[in-house]
Structure formats: C-alpha cells, structure tokens
C-alpha cells in the first residue's frame, strides 16, 4: 500500500489552517468538477481531492494522520503499525460510507472501519443498516435493444471479525433489461454495504451510460445516425438498405431530398413504453470525379442544369 500525501494532493503546507485547507479544496473541486472540467482524469483527481479533504478537514482524522504520517513520503510503501490509532477517538462525523466507498485502500485501512470496531467492542448490540453504494456502468447501445448480462466487479471497504479493514472485491452478474437508456439509474437491493447487527444490507445503485458508438448517437430514447446517399438517390428518391442497432432496415428516401433531411423510423429507437424513434440524417456523398466518364457526367450537369447553390439569402 502506498502512503498518500494528502497535503500534497490539496497543495497546502502541513501547518495549513482549516480555512486554507477549505479554500484549497474548493479551488480544486471547481477545477476538477466532473461536470465542467476539461482536465484529463478529472474524475480520478476529484476522488483524490475528496479523500484528502475528508481527512484534513476533520480535526480528529487530521491529527491521527499527522502522527502516523511523520517521515513518510507520497507513494512510499506504507503499512500502519498495529494499534496506531490508540488514543484517538473517531466520531465518523462529516463523511459517510456512501461517499468513501471508492476512496483508496490507504484511506480504508486507516479510517474505514471505525464504526465496525466500536460496535464490536460495545456492550450493547449495535445495529445499523449498511450504506448504499453508487456506481456507474457503461453499456453498449445494442444492450438497450436486446438486454444484456454484465459482470461487474466492485470493491468496498469491509471489516473482518478482528476489526481489521480491507478492500474486498466481489463480482456480480447483473441482467440488464432491454429498454434501459442513458442516465437511467438501476437498483440492486441488498448489494450495498453489509449491515451490522440486525441492520439490513444497503443497496447498490448503478447509473447507466452508453459507450460512444461509431455510428449511432443517443438522445433519451431516440437514436440518431447518418445515412449516406448518392446525389441521384437524394434527387430522384430511392429505397436503400441500412444497418440499425437491432438489424437492417429498408428505408425510402423521398424524391428531392437535401442533405440534413431527417427520416424518422417511428418506434425503432430504444425499446420502452413508448419506444424511442430512430432518425436517419441524410448525408449526400458525391462520387469522385476520378475517371474520364465521371468528369464528363459532371461537365454535362454543369452545362445543362444551370444550377447555382449560392443563390438565395445568405449565399
């Protein structure tokens, strides 16, 4: 396990005052906010920043961390000595398992199991419902049409019988029903943190996102794709065959179509009640004038059509 230098993560001195730490955290939280940040790895950086702030903003944890961390450098191999936390009391204030579920194993080892230990040592039986966990799952668009079985690996801090904390990995096979769409949240009852005493397990919530698809774009339940057509197919109309997420369709390109025209295939978007629509956006592709015959055809059109695409407003 590597030692984490939380002061370095937040860019503050070891003797920084509470308000300096808060200021540094906010500056970084703004910079790496996953919804606005253009920084690479903003998500991962935000987790590190949150973890560092969780420790340094809590006087109890900070004091324990300071005592423990003397002489250690970031990334140095680290193993906390037995009973390192003797003499410290942790109230668990200011953070929750839901927030800390994806913190590093360094954090879990140090602070992850306080409530568990208190419960084990206490005379009265301690009961608490396990925390809910939140995670994201990436699916292919085709999964939304057909449903999918997905194996997810999760790791979460867990306390063993001796009160020692470790990260436990577990694998879940999840059957995703068809019709799932981007941004939707699915729930797995009882798959969050284990409860203590008579408390039940927490739940696991998975936020669904689609992997970027080379051809299809998704908006809600509607799906968009470009449909390349030849100029004569657009001008004269044609029936063309094209691949869609759940197979192949034949679509009628109406006569006189221009590039950008949207053809709507009602109900062929993501399944549901009601299902979404599939939109094919026409893209007129010109054949290259690479042979004498092709050049001659273009020259004939130029001569005989008297067509100026720059006529009209804005041209």
């Amino acid at each position, binding site marked *: 396990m590597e030692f984490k230098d939380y002061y370095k993560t937040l860019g503050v001195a070891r003797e920084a005052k509470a308000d300096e730490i808060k200021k540094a955290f906010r500056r970084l*939280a703004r910079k790496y906010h996953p919804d*606005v940040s253009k920084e690479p790895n903003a998500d991962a950086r935000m987790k590190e920043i949150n973890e560092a702030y969780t420790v340094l903003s809590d006087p109890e944890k900070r004091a324990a961390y300071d005592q423990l961390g003397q002489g250690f450098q970031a990334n140095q191999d680290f193993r906390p000595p037995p009973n390192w936390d003797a003499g410290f009391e942790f109230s668990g204030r200011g953070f929750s398992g839901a927030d800390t579920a994806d913190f590093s194993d360094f954090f879990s080892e140090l602070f992850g199991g306080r409530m568990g230990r208190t419960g084990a040592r206490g005379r009265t039986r301690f009961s608490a419902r396990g*925390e809910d966990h*939140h995670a994201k799952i990436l699916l292919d668009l085709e999964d939304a049409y057909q449903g999918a079985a997905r194996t997810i690996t999760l790791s979460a801090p867990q306390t063993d019988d001796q009160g020692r904390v470790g990260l436990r990995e577990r694998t879940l096979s*999840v*059957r995703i029903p068809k019709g799932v769409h981007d941004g939707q949240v699915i729930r*797995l009852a009882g798959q969050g943190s284990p409860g203590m005493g008579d408390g039940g397990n927490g739940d696991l919530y998975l936020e669904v996102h689609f992997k970027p698809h080379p051809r299809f774009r998704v*908006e809600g339940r509607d799906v968009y794709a*470009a449909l390349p057509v030849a100029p004569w197919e657009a001008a004269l109309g044609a029936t063309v065959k094209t691949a869609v997420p759940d197979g192949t369709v034949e679509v009628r390109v109406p006569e006189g179509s221009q590039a950008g025209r949207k053809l709507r295939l009602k109900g062929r978007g993501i399944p549901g009640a009601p299902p979404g629509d599939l939109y094919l956006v026409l893209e007129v592709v010109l054949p290259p004038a690479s042979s004498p015959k092709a050049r001659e055809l273009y020259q004939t059109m130029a001569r005989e059509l008297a067509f100026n695409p720059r006529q009209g407003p804005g041209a």
Partner: protein
Amino acid sequence: MSEEYIVTMLEDAPLSLEELAISCTVTPEWIIRHVQAGVLLVEPGPDPSCWSFTGSDLRRARRLLSLERDFDANPELAGLVADLFDELERLRVRLRREGLVSE
C-alpha cells in the same frame, strides 16, 4: 462464484422519500426542504408520503448535496448550478448530434 441479479429500474419502481434520504445519506427533512424550495422533484403533490423519486431525481439530489457540501451553497444556488449542468449536458448532446464535437 458470482450470483446473478435481475435489476430494478427506478423509472419502474421509484424511491420513496425515506429511501431517497437513505440513499443520499441525508435526513428526510433535507429532502422535504429541497422539494419545498422548488429545486428537487417536478410538480410535487402536497403530501411528502406520496412523493416518488426516479433515477433522475436521485442523481439531482446527490448533485445538490455535493454542491452544498463542497461549496457551502444554499439550496437555491445549488439548484441553479444543477440546472446549468443539465443545460450544459443538453447542449453537449446537441453538439455531438450535429457532429460539431467529438465524443
């Protein structure tokens, strides 16, 4: 050895007030306060025990919570920022749809 789970979609089985509170590790009062401030739940009825929350409500509640906690924002300001994030996401989807940005 893995176990197979059939999942529940929150659109089909929304969360109750208490379930949402547990899931966000806040009190039910926190949820009620935010619904009454008009920043969570579209067109809520008068009785909190009849409210139900879908996946987008859950994501919004967690977003509000994190904005308030990280930046000491009040509910209205957090609601405004969350609205702007939603709008940003809608515009990004449009840009991608028009092919003006890469994924």
